[in-house]
């Protein structure tokens, strides 16, 4: 009988210790996450000139595709045509991911229209990939309003994750050899237009034929 009581007592002590350890562990983890977030916020303040999108990329370690072959895709355009990345073999391609609810995207899309007109003679192809599930007519309304003159493709479930896109806008500059030359996540609020143009030039110059 005494031995049973002793075993029961031991069990209660061990359970209490386990529960305490679990709660303590949980609190420590929560504290560590909060500290990490505070540190990240401190970085945000210290580097206010850096775009938050770049910080987001750091936090989430967005894959760096530079120097690697661009993931292939075949998607349906707004006009119903199937378009593949492979269709643009030998050309420089700007792949721009955007969403209908993304205000920064709508700022840079007219720049892409301008650059497409300017550099298409040199072999630039611009492709927009819309990453949300908005109705087609709503997407068309936006592209018409912004004067988009390049193909806009409807994303499938794979293409966004193949490119590691977790926010919009996101652009990939692909050289003539099919390798990613540069990538941009978010809109550079200071000199975004210049950065995009410089990256287009890099893509046009890369993997020359």
């Amino acid at each position, binding site marked *: 009988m005494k031995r049973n009581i002793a075993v029961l007592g031991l069990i209660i002590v061990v359970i209490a210790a*386990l529960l305490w350890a*679990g709660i303590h562990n949980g609190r420590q983890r929560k504290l560590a996450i909060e500290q990490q977030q505070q540190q990240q916020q401190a970085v945000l303040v210290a580097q206010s000139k850096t*775009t*938050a999108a*770049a910080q987001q990329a750091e936090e989430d370690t967005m894959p760096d595709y530079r120097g690697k072959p661009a993931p292939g895709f075949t998607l349906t355009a707004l006009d119903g045509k199937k378009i593949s990345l492979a269709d643009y073999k030998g050309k420089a391609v700007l792949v721009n991911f955007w969403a209908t609810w*993304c*205000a*920064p995207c709508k700022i840079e899309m007219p720049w892409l229209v301008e650059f497409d007109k300017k550099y298409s003679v040199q072999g630039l192809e611009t492709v927009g990939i819309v990453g949300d599930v908005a109705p087609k007519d709503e997407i068309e309304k936006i592209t018409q309003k912004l004067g988009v003159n390049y193909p806009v493709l409807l994303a499938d479930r794979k293409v966004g994750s193949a490119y590691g896109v977790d926010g*919009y806008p996101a652009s990939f500059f692909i050289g003539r050899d099919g390798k990613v030359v540069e990538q941009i996540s*978010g809109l550079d609020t200071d000199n975004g237009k210049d950065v995009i143009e410089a990256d287009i030039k890099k893509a046009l110059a890369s993997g020359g034929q």
Partner: protein
Amino acid sequence: MGRGQTHTRTILSAIFVLTCLAYIVHAQTNLSTAKGKAFVSYSAEPVIIAAGKQTIVPLRFHTLSGYHINSHTPRQDYLIATELTLQPASGIQIGKLDYPAGKPYSFAFDPQEKLDVYTGDFTVSARIIAPKGTYTLLGTLHYQACDNAACYPPKTLPIALPITAK
């Protein structure tokens, strides 16, 4: 059955219970660090309300520093509004939800466009009538976040509100 067998059974039962407990504790700690960026967090504060009487219950949320989400009534129709949904629960009446007013915000690259957003802490209030008892009201907060340069796909934050009606 001998005393030895009884002890063995007690010890085996204890080991089983401890193993289960260890698994639960481990699972809970892992859940708390599940991967995936959330831009809004929810403070699950248990509330005590008067049974049978309509009570305004606050649900407190926090938007991660450096980010904003659209308010419940964004000015632009292409933006995704913040929307709280509480699941119907047996015996509980959920009335009107009161959302806070948004704050004016403009992206640096487009100062002309005025947005209506939530940043930092914000509270949505729910009018609830519950009979005597304890409940956990479940729901979701649907929102779409942006920082100063990019926007992120809409997210759905699950919430659980512990209520005691006395």
